[in-house]
């Protein structure tokens, strides 16, 4: 059974988000010979369409319009309406990002469809497409199928494989215009305050260096930031560190913070409370550095160092500098 699959490809800070390409890979699997299209809503970076085509999109639909400059559910859903009029989709895939989480359920409700969110694996066997997702703060895993209607899913970044780029692939680029006045929107973006913490996006990062209460102060994050700099990593934090005012809540990894799935997670001075572990337990490799040998974090670590992070982290930075030089 072939399906026509649409990927809603997200752009952030002027670049295509990696999860968009992972979604193209999933879309190709799901399509089983059907068509794969990608849509970019709002400003599209110049090379985005070619990246999506090289990843496997047969068609890229770019929707422009003044109402799309900032994300609002209303404008983006109207844009999706236009896209779906052009491309009859049996399935629509999003990244499980702030925008994906905000938009996918509304689209599903509109289509009277089911949705499976935060998908970490996809298996397709003939007509059957099975979506895996974590539940109960990552302690259990469930697999779900669609009984009827359009498939809507959001994919957790850095979990599904990114397809190989093939520059010889051909694809069509369509441009649509959304004639919607910004002034007619019912929710208006008055201001966007970009937090000073620029750098690597925590939820898509391949390496994360995180600090907990053991960091002891805002300055205490400096050695971690240096290590992150050398590794090209994002910096995260436990809730305890955020609550203590050592860093902004946007750094928080955990059940009520961000979920990360990096290849490498280095936990410094983090005790390893369940709520924190929920946010990073699917990291491929976990390193824990803590003064307390009984800290629960060691149970979920692949490698453990019992020691003072203020001693160990700078030493690691030095060693990595040598290695990666």
């Amino acid at each position, binding site marked *: 059974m072939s399906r026509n699959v649409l990927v809603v490809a997200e752009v952030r800070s002027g670049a295509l988000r990696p999860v968009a390409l992972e979604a193209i890979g999933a879309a190709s699997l799901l399509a089983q010979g059907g068509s794969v299209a990608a849509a970019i809503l709002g400003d599209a970076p110049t090379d985005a369409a070619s990246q999506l085509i090289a990843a496997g999109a047969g068609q890229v639909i770019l929707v422009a319009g003044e109402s799309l400059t900032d994300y609002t559910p209303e404008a983006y859903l109207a844009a999706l309406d236009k896209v779906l009029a052009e491309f009859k989709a049996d399935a629509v895939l999003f990244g499980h990002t702030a925008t994906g989480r905000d938009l996918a359920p509304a689209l599903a409700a509109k289509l009277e469809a089911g949705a499976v969110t935060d998908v970490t694996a996809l298996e397709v066997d003939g007509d059957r497409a099975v979506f895996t997702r974590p539940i*109960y703060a990552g302690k259990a895993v*469930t697999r779900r199928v669609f009984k009827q209607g359009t498939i809507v899913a959001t994919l957790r970044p850095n979990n599904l494989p990114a397809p190989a780029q093939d520059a010889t692939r051909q694809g069509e680029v369509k441009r649509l215009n959304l004639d919607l006045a910004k002034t007619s929107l019912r929710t208006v973006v008055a201001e966007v305050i970009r937090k000073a913490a620029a750098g690597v996006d925590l939820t898509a990062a391949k390496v994360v260096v995180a600090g907990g209460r053991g960091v002891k102060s805002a300055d205490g994050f400096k050695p971690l930031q240096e290590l992150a700099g050398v590794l090209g990593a994002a910096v995260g934090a436990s809730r305890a560190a955020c609550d203590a005012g050592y860093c902004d809540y946007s750094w928080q990894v955990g059940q009520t913070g961000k979920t990360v799935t990096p290849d*490498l997670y280095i936990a410094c001075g983090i005790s390893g409370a369940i709520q924190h572990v929920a946010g990073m*337990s699917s990291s491929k490799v976990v*390193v824990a550095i803590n003064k307390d040998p009984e800290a629960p974090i060691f149970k979920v670590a692949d490698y453990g160092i019992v020691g003072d992070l203020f001693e160990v982290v700078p030493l690691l930075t030095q060693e990595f500098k040598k290695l990666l030089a």
Partner: protein
Amino acid sequence: MLVLLKQTFDTDTKIVLKDGRISEDGITMVINPYDEYALEQAIRLKEAGGGTVIVVCAGPARSEEALRKALAMGADEAVLIDPPADGDEYTLARVLAAACKARPFDLVLGGNLSVDNGASQVAIRVAHELGIPYVGAATKVEVNGGSVRVERDAEGDVEVITAAAPLLITAQQGLAEPRLPSLPGIMKAKKKPIARQTPADLGVDAPARTEVVDLKAADSSRQTKMLAGSAAEQATQLVHLLREEAKVV
């Protein structure tokens, strides 16, 4: 104001699987923390500007405990709807929306996600079913007459959104630290009404669009290699292992 609320397990609990389902034996249940932020925010808005707070819940009978706590915190009434068996997020949203439609409201608040299913779908679906706009992942809400100012969390950036009621808002962590119910609050809660309804009462027939194939415990097996030696030795060893053994750098 309407608050969408559910009861969930306390995340500190170990979970046990029985016959492919999560066993509820001996589990401490709590108000879903994100719904609790929404509830607290609604109560604060009521305290500042008047109005009522009605809590709407689709869940099993044990949810009554969570509803009594909500009433003790300051909600005025609660509605508990028997959920359809094997309903999915699509089903739940249809049921909750039907219950909401039966009551007048300016604002609907709910949690961004629930800590058990973690789908982050239901509240936003309800907004669509109600035909009202929504703002998700709110970290601050201010109401001035009929106009609402919401700060929302967009992966670290803060977006300031303005809108008019009717509006649905989902709560992100940090929206409003929930109060502990006071003793007088707990006493008053005993007399506040909890209406019971069924999907049939609400005229809802929304069979699930998805179904669960299976449910397994997460594979949490990691063999921890504890390093030894001086700090310098451990650092060198770790970097070597991460490159040669784990192959992640």
